[in-house]
């Protein structure tokens, strides 16, 4: 274990790659828990929240964002070396994020669309999850993550136990909440049957179908869902787009979207 400073508390670091900052913000959004969490751990490196930047090694490294540049590849390897446990948080870090939509396009073209002088932009062809480059000890899903799940995962690692995070589908949560199925009752396309729980099944309770922001559940039957979406009148293009959003490059969603390419 890394040497603990005078506090004797475990050192935790928060790192950012290509992302919107929303997942690390979840930690600051835990308003009622923040000061308690901060008293149990030493937040040694968390630039969004503090000027104090303590060098590693760290007991836990928390990583937000996807890997999109050659420089980032080097950086994530260094972070892995300095973190006893490495936890990735959010759809960017665990699946490449919305920016992984570039993975199906010619990146040179993309750079031209956004930047007037493309020669200055250094970027990889693909946006990939952290796990494509280094070993990850735990992946916490969501776009954004659920802040209570984050606190649970940190707690579990500090106490050397398995995090209590469900991997069942959003459908189970709708049943638990008593939400009427939007697909059955209103013919609304919904990714709930193949999407991992964690958000609290909010979209169906707001009269809309799940759009899969927590990524694929364990063993999803995406082909069966795609067939059902077709029954509801969705075109191949609709189905392709539905699977190609914030977790587009997660294996199960990637394959299903590619099966509906025209």
């Amino acid at each position: 274990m890394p040497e603990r400073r005078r506090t004797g508390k475990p050192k935790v670091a928060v790192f950012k790659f290509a992302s919107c900052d929303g997942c690390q913000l979840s930690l600051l959004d835990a308003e009622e828990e923040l000061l308690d969490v901060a008293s149990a751990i030493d937040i040694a490196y968390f630039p969004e929240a503090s000027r104090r930047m303590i060098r590693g090694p760290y007991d836990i490294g928390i990583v937000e964002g996807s890997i999109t540049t050659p420089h980032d590849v080097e950086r994530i390897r260094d972070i892995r070396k300095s973190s006893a446990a490495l936890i990735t948080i959010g759809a960017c870090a665990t699946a490449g994020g919305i920016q992984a939509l570039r993975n199906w396009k010619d990146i040179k073209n993309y750079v031209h669309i956004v930047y007037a002088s493309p020669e200055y932009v250094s970027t990889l062809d693909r946006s990939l999850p952290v796990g494509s480059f280094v070993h990850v000890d735990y992946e916490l899903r969501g776009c954004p993550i659920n802040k209570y799940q984050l606190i649970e995962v940190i707690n579990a690692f500090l106490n050397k136990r398995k995090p209590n995070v469900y991997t069942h589908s959003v459908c189970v949560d709708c049943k638990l909440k008593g939400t009427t199925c939007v697909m059955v009752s209103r013919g609304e396309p919904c990714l709930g049957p193949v999407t991992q729980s964690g958000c609290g099944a909010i979209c169906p309770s707001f009269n809309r179908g799940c759009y899969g922001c927590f990524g694929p559940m364990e063993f999803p039957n995406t082909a069966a869902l795609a067939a059902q979406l077709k029954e509801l009148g969705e075109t191949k293009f609709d189905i392709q787009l539905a699977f190609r959003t914030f977790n587009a490059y997660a294996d199960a969603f990637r394959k299903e979207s590619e099966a509906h390419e025209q």
Partner: protein
Amino acid sequence: MSNRAVKVDYLARVEGEGSLLVRMKDGSVSDVKFRIFEPPRFFEAFLRGRKYSEAPDITARICGICPIAYQMSSVHAMEYAFGVKVGGQLRELRRLLYCGEWIESHALHIYMLHAPDFLGYDDAIQLAVDHPDAVRRGLRLKKAGNDLVAVLAGREIHPINVRVGGFYKLPRRRDFDEILEKLKRARDEAYETVLWTATLPFPDFEYDYEFVALSHPDEYPFNEGKIVSNKGLTIDVREYELVFHERHVPYSNALQSTIKSPRPAEQQTSTTDGRGAYLTGPLARYNLNFEKLSPLAKKAAEEAKAKPPILNPFKSITVRAVEALYACDEAIRIIENYEPPAEAAVRYEVRPGFGFGCTEAPRGILYHRYLIGADGLIKDAKIVPPTAQNQRMIETDLRNFVTSNIQMSKQDLTLRCEQLVRNYDPCISCATHFLKLDISEETVT
């Protein structure tokens, strides 16, 4: 002391990854760079070919701090393209949602990102050791904003209830019972926040800024209004690109926004032509729209001796507090007058063409422009976030401040320069898909 430099490799307590460098030579400032090394994410590129209806949820992912701003600018742009107007209670609910984001974002910035600078702490956790009541008040205020967003739109980060035309689901009156009580407490705490921030030590620094903000005849601006400035600018949102220009400045490797000459030739004078850098955000909104604030917000401003004009950017912390107070007040007004409308969204027909939207993100005006095809797919997208617009002003502030404080110790000067950048509550994650970057230097970890 011929050659000196202030250098911060990784700016803390801002959203995203940036650095600053100020070089001094023979007693004057020779170079200023506010750099962005956050990697690009190419939103404008991958929006092409997506459905118009996906824009609110996709563009929300540009920023986890101000997703509602992205949702609002995008739906207003689409509605412009389709020729629909969202009015009545649906319009009020959109203002209500924005109130939640302003409260949450401003409380985060005031207490967790900005206040530690004034009182000499590294972060809010350290600040809480000596000022526990203040930090807890800030956290409660922030939570009230977040809770409001969650009640109305499902969750605080990347909320799920916003669509073109209105909402997916309307709240019932009783859904607001609990949050209304919280907002009333938050309003008191926001008032205390205004007075508390006014006691902070402010460096002596002012500048004759060109302030740019939305302005609406009947209300403090959130979603609608003309784009105006204190130096004679008044344009419709659709004229944005005629007046604001993004240019490539070689020394900073960044595209920066500047004001071109104003549109009508007859208005061009020496004071309103070729003006360059401008400031958007709370300071601009406040100086341009103070009269539209609620009586309570104005009273707090008066008590804090913070009525406009405020030309000291360090005092933006008090302005954010007044705006947070106004947002609490406005949210309470909207909830107390709320009658659920007949439908959650107005009906519209998709039609091809350009759509323009500009709304007031917590950090300033956020411009979206889309070209929609007959098939409802996005053909082209342009997004200009507030931090991209403020970038040049940030560099100007750094240059001016260092020039007049060149004798200050390097340590103090570094702290002040960081604080100057934080005055803008910059959101580098927002700006990045748009800015040039230079990854080769100022590396991290």
